[in-house]
């Protein structure tokens, strides 16, 4: 097992990646003068809190309509899943798949991934640490893609204003949807992937 910065009495600055001598409590980077801690304080607690908040937002985001189409005086509101169903009935399968992945699968996958990561920290360093680090990469990468539907509605609502013929307005669901995306991104940012590699059974640090 190779040595870590922590076991060698060093701390890496999260801003500029310079190694600083470890102290207990708050560090000040000798290069960029940023304040930081050896591990993000209360990382797991924050991650869990943001993940739960995102999961709560997921419910109204899918129950409430995100787009309201008015055609010749007739109003039709549709949720995300109804919008995808419409793509399928129109035979536009590739778009249906993209929208379904971006706005339904990705948010759930992110929330599930974060739960797996939080559980992984309890086990500490092991064979699965590498896979879990990859999972963290994936969760971070997927972050903004769920905003797809919000951008689609934003643009459509502004473009489609054809008098009495047809017009499109945004629905209440997009507020919750945006909040959900932002909360999952906060959750991913709160998580400290180094916790996946810390071995609880070893003496953690040599702080004086």
């Amino acid at each position, binding site marked *: 097992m190779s040595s870590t910065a922590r076991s060698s009495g060093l701390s890496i600055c999260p801003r500029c990646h310079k190694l600083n001598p470890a102290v207990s409590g708050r560090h000040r980077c000798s*290069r960029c003068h940023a304040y930081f801690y050896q591990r993000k304080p209360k990382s797991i607690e924050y991650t869990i809190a943001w993940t739960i908040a995102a999961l709560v937002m997921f419910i109204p985001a899918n129950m409430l309509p995100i787009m309201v189409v008015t055609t010749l005086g007739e109003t039709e509101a549709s949720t995300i899943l109804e919008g995808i169903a419409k793509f399928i009935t129109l035979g536009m399968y590739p778009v249906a798949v993209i929208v379904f992945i971006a706005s339904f699968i990705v948010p759930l996958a992110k929330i599930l991934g974060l739960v797996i990561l939080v559980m992984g920290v309890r086990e500490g360093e092991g064979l699965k640490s590498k896979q879990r*680090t990859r999972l963290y990469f994936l969760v971070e990468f997927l972050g903004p893609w769920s905003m797809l539907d919000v951008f689609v509605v*934003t643009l459509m609502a502004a473009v489609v204003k054809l008098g009495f013929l*047809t017009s499109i307005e945004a629905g209440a669901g997009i507020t919750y949807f945006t909040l959900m995306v932002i909360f999952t991104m906060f959750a991913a940012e709160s998580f400290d992937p*180094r916790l996946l590699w810390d071995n609880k059974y070893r003496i953690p640090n040599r702080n004086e």
Partner: protein
Amino acid sequence: MSILTESSGQVLACPRCDTLAYSPRVHEGQKVLCHCCGSKIMAFKQNSIERTLALAVAGLIVALPAIFLPIIGVGFVGFYHQASLFDSILHLFDRGYWLIAFAVFLFTAAIPLIKLSGAFYLTWSIKRKRPKPALMKFFRSYHHLDSWTMLHVFVLGVVVSMYKLVDMADLSIGYGFAAFVFLQLCSTLVTVTLDHHYIWHYLEHHVDE
């Protein structure tokens, strides 16, 4: 561009898993990967400052047309309407969705612009050899801007909207869309060419506070 070569043998730590590693002698175009978790620890990029400067200028030039020129337009029996990114944000604001309007404004206009101007200011100062202490403060928070830039998602959003609209009305694509794709390209390439390690190394040795 050879600051790093003299300091080979320095100790690096992986920001993902905390493993220590001795940096090998790194040449331009090479990168150092963590032997424990496989994350990229550092990359020594080719002509990083010049390339980033050029791309940041290009991005800033297309930014205004990308935001204010119409992206797509729809027409149907005599009616015609088109909208730019700016119109879309204003429309949401008008309808009371101020939170969404603000979020869309941040992710697709404000943050990318701050990122490009920041990259321009950084590389210009280094190129002119006039780094200021404020650069350090700015660069400290710079890496956050990358994860909150959502231009690529917006481009895909435009494409999906086109699919939705194409059977509803006559669709036309505006110059705004072309400018937006260019803006997205420049923004992504700035992320690729900007060499954080080099810039930190440079600032450490050339800024005295």
